[in-house]
């Protein structure tokens, strides 16, 4: 029996493999667990969705592609840049389920750009621009692009009516056609009132669970940060909730009070885990969403990040594939932190390093050996003067120390403000399309 099973696996998995959506582990850089083609080895390219800066190059938002393979002659160099012909506050991106297309959004103009990164990842092409999100939904500021089978779930930040933080989720099919919208809850559910704000989305398919977080609307994120923090009224308009949705019915089932703008959400997807984690930007906490002994979902703060009194502003997190560790970037003090999540109820910071005058996004490779950091938060929130460094920095991580691998100076190269990163790889060796294979 054992021998037979081994033979079947040998033939079935190694030789004749139907790639199925991977739901067993976390992602290599916080991608949807439904995506195919996770990169478990060396990534070849890092794509950076970059905010245009007036007077810098062509001033447009652009997708910048950097060679990330150490074996390449152009390792660490910008090999491609693709301007979208305007400046709309480039922010986040997400792959479609087949990892062939990258959807990228503008927080100011609410446009969504679809890049083909599957045909030739070294030279992405803009294949579609979706500009009907505000008209179809009343939402503005598309932020998170999360792959579901055959479609994208989009979390927005704002709305067209008052440009505040009340917003919602929308879905589009992979062809770019609008499907549906779902308002973030403003009613009271199980004694907690919804604030209607949105930010990130993350799904756990085994639990039919969708989690969302909440940030702020256009009125705040497109305003100078210094002005916002000095305006008590503006400071009232940040999200303070997370919402647990029934993914199948798309109905909100529970609201958690999570003060201080909870941002990125990461599920622990290895089997046996029943928790997700987020970081709150304004209160500098790690929050755990976990089932209690009675099976009820609960949210609680489980750690502080830096000194919350100094508002270090944790802005991005990246969980390891085994969900045992978490990178956290704090923008204001330019620090990259590593937390041991072996006991998710009690995360312990085991490492930190000053990685720049301002640091924002952090993405790690699947094997955890490489960590990439970018500098820009928002065009109106980035620091001024000499502290306004704009870079992508790549590091090696040996479990003890981050050591520099390469750096791209986005200001010097007249590119703009680098924000979100996604990895791609060349096609696997000796793979052809069905069309080519048929000799057409």
């Amino acid at each position, binding site marked *: 029996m054992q021998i037979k099973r081994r033979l079947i696996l040998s033939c079935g998995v190694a030789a004749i493999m139907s790639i199925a959506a991977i739901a*067993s582990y976390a992602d290599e850089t916080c991608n949807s667990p439904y995506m195919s083609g996770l990169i478990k080895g060396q990534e070849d390219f890092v794509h950076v969705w970059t905010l245009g800066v007036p007077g810098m190059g062509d001033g447009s938002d652009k997708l910048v592609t950097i060679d990330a393979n150490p074996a390449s002659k152009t390792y660490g160099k910008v090999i491609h840049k693709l301007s979208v012909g305007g400046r709309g506050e480039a922010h986040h991106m997400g792959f479609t389920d087949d990892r062939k297309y990258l959807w990228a959004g503008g927080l100011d103009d609410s446009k969504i750009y679809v890049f083909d990164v599957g045909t030739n990842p070294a030279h992405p092409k803009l294949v579609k621009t979706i500009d009907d999100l505000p008209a179809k939904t009343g939402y503005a500021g598309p932020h998170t692009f999360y792959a579901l089978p055959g479609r994208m779930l989009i979390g927005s930040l704002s709305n067209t009516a008052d440009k505040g933080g009340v917003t919602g989720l929308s879905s589009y099919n992979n062809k770019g056609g609008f499907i549906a919208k779902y308002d973030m809850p403003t009613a009271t559910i199980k004694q907690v009132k919804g604030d209607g704000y949105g930010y990130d989305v993350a799904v756990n398919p*085994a639990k039919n669970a969708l989690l969302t977080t909440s940030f702020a609307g256009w009125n705040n994120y497109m305003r100078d940060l210094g002005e916002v923090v000095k305006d008590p009224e503006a400071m009232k308009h940040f999200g303070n909730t997370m919402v647990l949705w*029934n993914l199948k019915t798309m109905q909100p089932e529970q609201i958690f009070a999570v003060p201080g703008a909870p941002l990125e959400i990461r599920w622990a997807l290895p*089997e046996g885990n029943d928790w997700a984690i987020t970081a709150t930007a304004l209160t500098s906490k790690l929050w755990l969403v976990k089932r209690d002994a009675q099976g009820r979902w609960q949210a609680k703060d489980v750690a502080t990040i830096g000194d919350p009194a100094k508002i270090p502003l944790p802005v991005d997190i990246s969980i390891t594939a085994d969900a045992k560790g978490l990178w956290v970037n704090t923008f204001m003090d330019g620090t990259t932190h590593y937390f041991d999540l072996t006991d998710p109820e009690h995360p312990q910071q085991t490492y930190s390093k000053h990685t720049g005058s301002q640091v924002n996004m952090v993405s790690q490779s699947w094997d955890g050996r490489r960590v990439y950091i970018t500098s820009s938060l928002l065009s109106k929130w980035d620091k001024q003067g000499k502290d306004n460094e704009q870079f992508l920095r790549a590091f090696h991580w040996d479990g003890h120390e981050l050591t520099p691998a390469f750096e791209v100076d986005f200001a010097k190269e007249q590119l703009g403000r680098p924000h979100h990163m996604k990895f791609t790889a060349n096609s696997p060796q000796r793979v052809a399309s069905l069309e080519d294979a048929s000799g057409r």
Partner: protein
Amino acid sequence: MRGCRAVALSLLSLVGIPAAAGAAVDPGKATAPRMEFAAPPPGSYTLQMIQRVSDAVLLDSTGRTVRLSALTRGKITLLTFFYTYCVDPLGCPFAHTTLADLRDRVRADRSLSGRVRFVSVSLDPTHDTPAIVARYAEEFTIDPKFEWRFLTAGRVPQLLPVLDDFGQDVSVDVDENGRATRTLHHMLKMFLIDPHGEVREIYSLAFLQPQVMFNDIKTLALAADPAAPRPRS
């Protein structure tokens, strides 16, 4: 591994393809879907209108030409892609085992009698001729009262628009000489289509949860029944 590849040659293997350079994508370990929740009751939710199915001309297992529109309208349809020589335990065999489970659930529900069909479309028309598809189908078409159609295409170019419409990716491994092998890569997907030809749900491996899929079928059936209670939204 060699044994698997040597089982039989498809026409795909007769065409030389230049080998691509570089490799970093690991498809990773697939696992069977887990379900740690109670499926929402049928009719308590609305399934999204994801996309309309385009028409195409394919071949049935007797070799007759059929319009895909004829098999994606009039009934609730669950459509998937496969190839007959796929042996990945979490690939086509798993998909068809899941469908067989669903077929039995549907057969046991009198309210669904004659209202549900399954359609399986081959990804490799160069190997999966109507005759081969017919032999493969024998295991699954045990109940003549349940419509489970197995289709293929006359040629690959006839299949490509169908794959493109459904967003079904497929690629083929080539050997060291650049010749196509019998290793096909595809992301397992099933498409739930309402009687009007609209895709209402798409299941990848993580979503192949028979109870949820059955409730989705029931939800579509209830929506088509004017006497049925209306969903919440």
